[in-house]
């Protein structure tokens, strides 16, 4: 293993961004999934397309749109400037980029979890005196817990690997916005960086494997708990 202090910073920053992006997206992801599963309204298809768009769009395109929106002349940019928040080319921009790209994965998993809930549980809950938001908190939330965990871990892993959108809105500034993939990109483009790049690749692989293992273990645990 051959990690420079700068690499350690990149790893820590990657974790910080991925955790923040996941936590930031969770409430929105849950709400979006709930709306898509339990509510009927006009334009549902449109919402569906919109939510899934980042899954198929090149991340660079998403990054570019974010740059336009949060940039000097965009609405978001004007709002943030009024609030005195520095955004573009900071780690916050990297969080928003990761959140946008990973969002469909989160919603998809939570949705699958919610769709597997028997509607009669909700009917039972309502007829026993629970309001819709009580039912949401006491039945839907715990019964879609597996989907939430699955979605969060997928989104976390996806955020760790985010490259295209991040480099456009947050740049590639060592110590400020340089995450693991961006650092590898730097090493890969220099002739002497092979072993450094490989070290970071190893870190990246072990993080991904670790998360996926955790994902499986938690999934199994929840399954066992449900069956006993």
């Amino acid at each position, binding site marked *: 293993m051959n990690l420079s202090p700068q690499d350690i910073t990149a790893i820590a920053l990657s974790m910080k961004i991925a955790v923040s992006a996941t936590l930031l997206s969770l409430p929105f992801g849950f709400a979006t999934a709930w709306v898509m599963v339990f509510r009927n309204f006009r334009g549902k298809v449109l919402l569906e397309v919109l939510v899934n768009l980042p899954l198929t769009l090149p991340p660079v395109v998403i990054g570019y749109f974010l740059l336009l929106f949060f940039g000097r002349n965009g609405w978001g940019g004007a709002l943030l400037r009024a609030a005195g928040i520095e955004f573009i080319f900071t780690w916050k921009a990297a969080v928003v980029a990761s959140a946008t790209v990973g969002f469909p994965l989160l919603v998809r998993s939570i949705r699958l979890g919610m769709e597997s809930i*028997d509607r*009669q*549980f909700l*009917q*039972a*809950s*309502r*007829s*026993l*005196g*629970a*309001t819709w938001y*009580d039912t949401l908190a*006491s*039945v839907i939330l*715990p*019964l879609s*817990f597996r989907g939430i965990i699955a979605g969060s871990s997928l989104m976390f892993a996806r955020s760790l690997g985010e490259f295209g959108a991040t480099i456009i809105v947050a740049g590639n500034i060592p110590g400020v916005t340089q995450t693991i993939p961006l650092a590898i990109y730097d090493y890969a483009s220099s002739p002497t960086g092979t072993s450094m790049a490989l070290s970071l690749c190893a870190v990246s692989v072990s993080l991904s494997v670790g998360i996926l293992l955790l994902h499986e273990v938690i999934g199994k645990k929840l399954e066992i708990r*449900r*069956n*006993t």
Partner: protein
Amino acid sequence: MKLGIDIEKRLGNFSLSMRAEVSGERIGIFGASGSGKSSLVHMIAGLTAPDSGELYLDGTCLFSSRQRINIAPEKRRIAIVFQQAMLFPHISVKANLLYGYRRLLPENRKISPEAIIEVLNLQDLLDRGVNNLSGGEKQRVALGRAVLANPRLLVMDEPLSALDDSLRYQIIPYLKSVSEEFRIPYLFISHSLSEMQLMADQVLVMNNGNLTCISTPDDVARAGMARSPRGYLNLLRLDSAMYRDGLFHYPWGDGSLIISDGKPDSESLFELSSRDIILFKQHPEAISARNLLECTVAEMFDSDGRKGIVLRSGGSTLVAEIVHSAAVDLGISPGSTMFAAIKASAFRRLG
């Protein structure tokens, strides 16, 4: 309990249109699957809204398209027991039981958890996981959960259909005792006429989204005797059997019934098809059937060309079914005396 129904609802290419007013404490909704029973009770409970019309319970308007009223299900206080117990899998049996109770205003908490646990015999189940209960146990907990919500009306939507025969008739006494003990009126939904006869005083008979009639379960059973594959099913609750020569002798009417599949020392419920009774005008000398009962013809009724003969002995009755020509040949009329022969094996023990 008084229920006023006047509703219309379209669901795909099925349409339900119904107008009825019923009052009573034990009301059944009877019909084949797909006749709209569940849709109807979903609307009564507020889980789906009718397209138009009105729904009243004890003078309170639950739904009115004209007055734009649609009371939320949690405010209607109508608890449902479903075909599947639908116990929440993520919480304990105890938390399931208390789910509705905890959401009640204190002044509405008239039935206490202790009382329900006692009546439904749930003590040993409280600490078990929801998924470690048998089907019958789950249904008992679901019933307790619904009753503990202290509802104004209990809706039982085919609560026995998912259980096998022997369990089904073990649960029925619980269903009845709970509603009697705690004075909760109920709507009992089923496609089984025997269950109706055991559970309801009055039935709304539904067919294809419409109300066919409001009648008593017994009248429905009599009217359907000829068409039903097993005829009219006599339900007999018998007790204090004597066991002799491999057969059970149960006191019934002026004499006794001899049954092969009995059970000592406890009350049992038996089913006897109207087609398993043979009638004789005079006492036959010797027959293989173990039961030969001297009865009086109390009443006769028609069902699609068949004759139903209501036989009385002591205070008890049995319905026998014969074809029209047999009734003419034997010259049966109300008041005449008949001998009914029944094989000891014709009685089916339900529970």
